[in-house]
């Protein structure tokens, strides 16, 4: 199966092209957050270098959030449109789980972390089982202290991953002592190749049209509106005119 995988959830941009278990090409950039401008040219260049054309693709795997709202929308809009227009399969994987794929130590816990400012994070808790991170505590947007209060690692090791993980080093060491392990700068990066390998094992989304990023957070305007209009729920805000 020919697979394109991509992740632009945060500062990094990562793309890979795979053929079943074989990684044909991959590229990751970490400097400029110019995903709208760079994503398709990088995909195009890699495809050309491995002698593939878009119609050769059979599946798109995308890290669909959480992360920067614009970032997750760029990858998700690209993946959704590509799968739709080529009539191929689409798979969405949590951007946090995508980072957790870097850790392989069987039985250990993984806590991928995206800094969401003001001591808030996007995080989730995973456990490596049969070589893949299985979700233990759901991905969420939370105050970091409250998040730590929810976590009991028993006597397991927990890997804190992501380029933002060191921002929380003190709190993590306070709570978990020497049971917390920080990753090197390679494992802290999302790797589209791993995302592509993992995404091949999952079943594709049923309805491409309704596929949207997992923001894990309402916009402030909507949250305020909900608070002022309890119980009021309108199912569709968008209507076709003409």
């Amino acid at each position, binding site marked *: 199966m020919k697979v394109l995988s991509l992740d632009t959830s945060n500062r990094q941009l990562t793309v890979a092209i795979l053929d079943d278990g074989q990684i044909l090409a991959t590229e990751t950039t970490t400097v400029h957050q110019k995903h*709208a401008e760079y994503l398709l040219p990088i995909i195009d260049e890699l495809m050309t270098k491995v002698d593939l054309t878009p*119609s050769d693709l059979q599946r798109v795997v995308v890290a669909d959030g959480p992360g920067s709202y614009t970032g997750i*929308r760029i990858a998700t809009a*690209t993946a959704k449109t590509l799968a739709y*227009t080529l009539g191929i399969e689409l798979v969405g994987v949590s951007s946090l789980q995508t980072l957790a794929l870097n850790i392989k130590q069987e039985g250990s816990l993984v806590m991928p972390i995206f800094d969401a400012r003001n001591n808030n994070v996007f995080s989730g808790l995973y456990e490596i089982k049969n070589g893949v991170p299985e979700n233990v505590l759901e991905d969420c947007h939370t105050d970091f202290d409250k998040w730590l209060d929810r976590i009991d690692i028993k006597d397991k090791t927990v890997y804190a991953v992501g380029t933002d993980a060191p921002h929380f080093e003190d709190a993590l060491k306070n709570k978990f002592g020497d049971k917390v392990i920080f990753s090197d700068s390679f494992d802290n990066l999302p790797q589209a190749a791993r995302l592509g390998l993992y995404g091949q094992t999952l079943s594709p989304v049923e309805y491409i049209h309704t596929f949207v990023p997992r*923001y894990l957070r309402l916009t402030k305007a909507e949250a305020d509106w909900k608070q002022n209009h309890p119980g009021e729920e309108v199912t569709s*805000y*968008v209507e076709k005119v*003409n």
Partner: protein
Amino acid sequence: MQPHIIMSFESSCDETSVAIIEDGEKILSNVVATQINSHKRFGGVVPEVASRHHIEQITICVEDAMKQADVSYDDIDAIAVTYGPGLVGALLIGVTAAKTIAWAHNIPLIPVNHISGHILASRFVTKINYPALALVVSGGHTELVLMKEEGDFKIIGETRDDAAGEAYDKVGRVLGINYPAGPKVDAMAAEGKDTFNFPRAMEKEDNFDFSFSGLKSAFLNTTHHADQIHEELDKNDLAASFQSAVVDVLVDKTTRALQEYPVSQLILAGGVAANKGLRSALEEKIDKIDTTELIKVPNKLCGDNAAMIGAAGYVMAKKNVFAGVDLNADPSLEFDLLEDEE
């Protein structure tokens, strides 16, 4: 290259739209999904909410537009997309989808300025003879645009503060009307009389620029003062007074622009071009100028839609304007000023 069939995308604000256009002048389909009901909750467009709705709608709009036009990807010769001006997150959805489809099927991509789309919606009404002048009045823009030739747009005058549509929406809020208030204020104005005599800004100044913030303040002061002394003002009269001040200034500056730049066609475009008061006042004035005809974009095509982007894309393709898949959104894209050229 002269594309026969164009697929076009528009997502600069709160409408997700995809259209299929033949020869730049015939609409085969024009699917518009509007988010107005969502933003009404907040009294105006919330950018992040708009972006979220766009990604929900985008592929559905593509599918509907292709089905209604009965075309396949093989039939599509070019893809046109609004890349600015507008809300960056909103623009990015249309740009990303357009680029992805262009890349997937190896179709040329045409970048389109949203305002040129509003103006060239007039192609669906008649053939444009150049040079032509356009009065663009919308939610974010109020400008007089001179087109010396096809595909060339130069600003000869523009608003120094609020856009006309923006002023309608703000004044509407004070009158208790939900966003977007323009159509309702227009309807109320038809029922009232100009009794308040609000200021006509910059009417006497020797340029083609507009200003609506003074008018807005005068309006707010009047209603605020009445509130304080518990006086009930006639809302229809307020609407009529506001509207005639806006219309007078627009018509006056436009007529003067026509004296300096005599053209055979004046195009009235943008969301506020649907305004009945503005249409009839401009009509009356232009009727008296034998050499100029007024081209009104039909109401249905005044608001944001992808058909107009397809029309503009056709013109840009003639001028050989194409983009690569590195095309980015440009939220503050604008035409050059004529004076910079001269």
